[in-house]
């Protein structure tokens, strides 16, 4: 048994909304393009049902975070979002100070929708801006332009919701260093609470990957990508943010609590078609099949799950926690890690750690094991040695 720090019953809740206006060219998440409100209603009902089913097994769970992701969850109407959150409160013990996030696409928000979102109880929005350059947005196949995004952000600010994140992507075909700089400058001027910058990474089946294979577009190459990453870190930090994860930056106090649950290898329960859960040392996923999901819940059953991995040995759990934990700039607290997994990292992984400390990629300081900044962009090189 693993003694978990704090209450064993603290968990995150993830709700997956597998709908979007249209598929973006780089997206490989489980999501279907539809705007059918009848479908949305059915789906929300099914989610409510699933929450009801889970209520018993989550009886001892206190939900510290709720994260509604997708897809484009903001495609749902204010009322549907409210119904869904009501069900969360009905069936789960939701902490009073819980962080409740909604992923949103600029094309789906207006003043009324934002009002409804706040009324439903959401206190954080993660906005998929991706770029403030229309050329980039076009290649990414986004359903909004740069001006939409700026307007939407202004609306969010007007709504009084201060905790919002902007997602940005770099490494887009055709993107230049100066265009990326421009995107960052606009983002910083808007003063969000949180910024995520992700390198464009393509699953081989995405339309953009196919276009690249066919020679219609070209990726930028690792030199430019690394340069963009470095520039991103420098600019965002100068803008008053603190980097707390390889790709994430924050104004003090606005760390995304839900993401921290992932990175700290804490437990979370996934709800909805294609949602991933991590409980009882197992990671598993509700089948990525909307019809199955709806059919099951409408007939009074739970969706089938597929097991992704089951970690029987403490070494496996420890390896999992290291791979996730080193993503955080603070890294891993060695003492707490030992308490939790019964593994003294510095002894158990002595050779690896010595090797990479020696090469300036790992650092041990104040009881924490962490990456050096130099290691962030080549982190897999180190992380692969920690696989179980």
């Amino acid at each position, binding site marked *: 048994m693993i003694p978990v720090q704090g209450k064993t019953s603290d968990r995150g809740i993830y709700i997956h909304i597998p709908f979007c206006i249209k598929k973006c060219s780089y997206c490989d998440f489980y999501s279907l393009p539809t705007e059918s409100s009848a479908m949305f209603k059915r789906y929300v009902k099914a989610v409510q049902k699933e929450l009801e089913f889970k209520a018993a097994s989550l009886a001892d769970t206190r939900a510290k975070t709720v994260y509604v992701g997708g897809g484009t969850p903001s495609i749902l109407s204010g009322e549907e979002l409210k119904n869904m959150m009501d069900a969360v409160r009905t069936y789960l013990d939701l902490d009073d100070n819980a962080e409740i996030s909604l992923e949103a696409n600029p094309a789906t928000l207006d003043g009324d929708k934002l009002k409804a979102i706040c009324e439903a109880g959401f206190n954080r929005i993660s906005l998929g801006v991706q770029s403030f350059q229309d050329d980039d947005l076009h290649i990414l196949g986004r359903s909004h332009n740069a001006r939409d995004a700026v307007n939407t952000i202004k609306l969010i600010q007007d709504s009084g919701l201060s905790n919002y994140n902007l997602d940005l992507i770099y490494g887009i075909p055709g993107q230049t260093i100066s265009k990326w700089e421009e995107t960052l400058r606009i983002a910083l001027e808007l003063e969000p609470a949180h910024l995520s910058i992700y390198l464009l990474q393509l699953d081989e089946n995405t339309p953009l990957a196919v276009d690249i294979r066919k020679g219609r577009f070209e990726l930028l190459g*690792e030199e430019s990508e*690394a340069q963009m990453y470095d520039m991103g870190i420098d600019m965002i930090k100068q803008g008053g943010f603190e980097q707390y994860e390889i790709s994430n930056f924050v104004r003090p106090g606005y760390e995304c609590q839900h993401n921290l649950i992932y990175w700290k290898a804490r437990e979370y329960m*996934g709800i909805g078609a294609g949602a991933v859960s991590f409980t009882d040392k197992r990671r598993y996923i509700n089948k990525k099949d909307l019809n199955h999901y709806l059919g099951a819940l409408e007939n009074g059953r739970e969706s089938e799950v597929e097991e992704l991995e089951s970690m029987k040995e403490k070494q496996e759990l420890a390896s999992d926690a290291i791979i996730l934990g080193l993503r955080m700039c603070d890294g891993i607290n060695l003492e707490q890690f030992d308490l939790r997994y019964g593994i003294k990292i510095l002894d158990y992984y002595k050779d690896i750690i010595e090797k990479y400390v020696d090469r300036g990629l790992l650092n041990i300081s104040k009881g924490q094991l962490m990456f050096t900044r130099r290691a962030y962009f*080549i982190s*897999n090189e180190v992380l692969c040695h920690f696989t179980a």
Partner: protein
Amino acid sequence: MQDRIRNFSIIAHIDHGKSTLADRLLQVTGAISAREMREQYLDKMDLEREKGITIKLQPVRLKYKARDEKEYILNLIDTPGHVDFSYEVSRSLAACEGALLIVDASQGIEAQTLANVYMAMELNLEVIGVVNKIDLPGAEPEKVMQEMEDVLGIDHSEIIPISAKMGLGIEEVLEAIVNKTPAPVGDEKGPLQALIFDSYFDSYKGAISYIRVVAGEVQKGDMIKMMASGKQFEVSEIGVITPYMTEVQSLKAGEVGYLVAGIKNVIDTRVGDTITGARVPAPRALPGYQEVKPMVYCGLYPLENNDFEKLRDALDKLKLNDASLFYEPESSDALGFGFRCGFLGLLHLEIVRERLEREYDLSLMATAPVVVYRIQLTDGSEKDVQNPTHWPPAQKIQAVLEPYYKATIMVPHEYVGTIMELCQEKRGTYINMEYLTAQRVIITYKLPLAEILYDFFDLMKSRTKGYASLDYELSAYEISDLVKLDVMLNGEVIDALSFITHKDNSYQRARSIAQRLRKIIPRQMYEVIIQAAIGSKVIARENIKAMRKDVLAKCYGGDITRKKKLLEKQKEGKKRMKQIGHIEVPKDAFMSVMDIEKE
């Protein structure tokens, strides 16, 4: 008795259909039933069956009732179809009175086949010509028969056209063996003389010798003596192969079979040695015995340092079955502990390496193959070097000699210029050229073995669209202007990458190796500088830029399982790398010194 025995060999180029003909002979004579039949029945190694190539067939004794209504015993003794094993070819031929020469009806005679036929003729074997694969669309049996007559003097009306695959002409082949091959005429009463033409190791019985009794008789319980080594053994079993091992009471002059005598190691039953009686030994051994010496050496190192003992065990076991394999422990700064191994040639090396990896589950690194150089030192002494690491410093070298081979190349006449050009490039000396027919030419050159091993064969094949064929034999050691080329990674000499090259080629070779390493060494966390140098003089340089990106930037909950799989794969990939200092070098890099122009 002897007048009913026919001992014959098969001479064929790889792919000309030797195994298939052997399969048909087994079937037609009823040695095995249709139910027991499988393809390439007599191929001994899985490796052979898998690659579809036959190095050597197992010997077999066939019973054949000929058209004269008499029953004959036909002993098939195969010859290995590769130049690495030409000594074994000579011993197999020496055990026979006749030889079947199989030539592919669309390919014609190849250089190596020709060499083996000449060897058979020198040993006074009756050569029976067979043209195979006459059923194939590109077959030109008439042309090939004419060629065989022109080149080898085999009357073309006596050449048998067959298709082993379709089963055409098989009986004609059997009749020809009976009617043309002379029966053995050994002295049955004289002292025992039996030629060992092959041997292998059996984990229950020990070393098993395949023998041809030339004179006298051998029985179970006899004390025998190996005439080359002088060692004595007691015969515990003798028999024939039908193709099943079948015990018999005795083997007499003219017969072929196997012999078991509690011999622990194939080294004590060497191919070419003569077995005689310990009590009444023959006055002299049969002619032609040679101790085979490795011609090519390379280092074999386990990728995992702690597999050293496992590698030693595996080599010990292979050696039981392979008297020509040589090995001794050596160490390398870059690769750790391993073995310097000697082989008859590159195919032999490749087979041993592959068997070690497959049958003994080892992951190996091989250094580039080298020949044996003879170095005359300034102090008047001489030393053999088969490892570039042991090359003496330039100021101590008086002269270096390298092995030169007489290479016989058979080629259609339109490629004569191409071949001569290639031989010149490869430091060859012209010896002779002869038109076999109006179309086919034999060109003889003296070439350094090092060049033949390096890329000569591949270049010859590619520049002649595969039409040229090659045979070679040792000619002499001669003085050459050779230098040692060192390769450095970030300033450190990587001993396992050093190689010997002719001075005139050194700049080009140095550039090629540096470029090749730049391609196969992946980007590292730091820049890697590759240099090639003679002594302290750097003559080529390349650099590999530092890795900038190796990250999955987006990583949220659900993604982690997938990401972990990618990380595991990455870790697996590192297992194929050898860590040298701070640099991860793919295990195949060490062999790549050889592959420079094979891109």
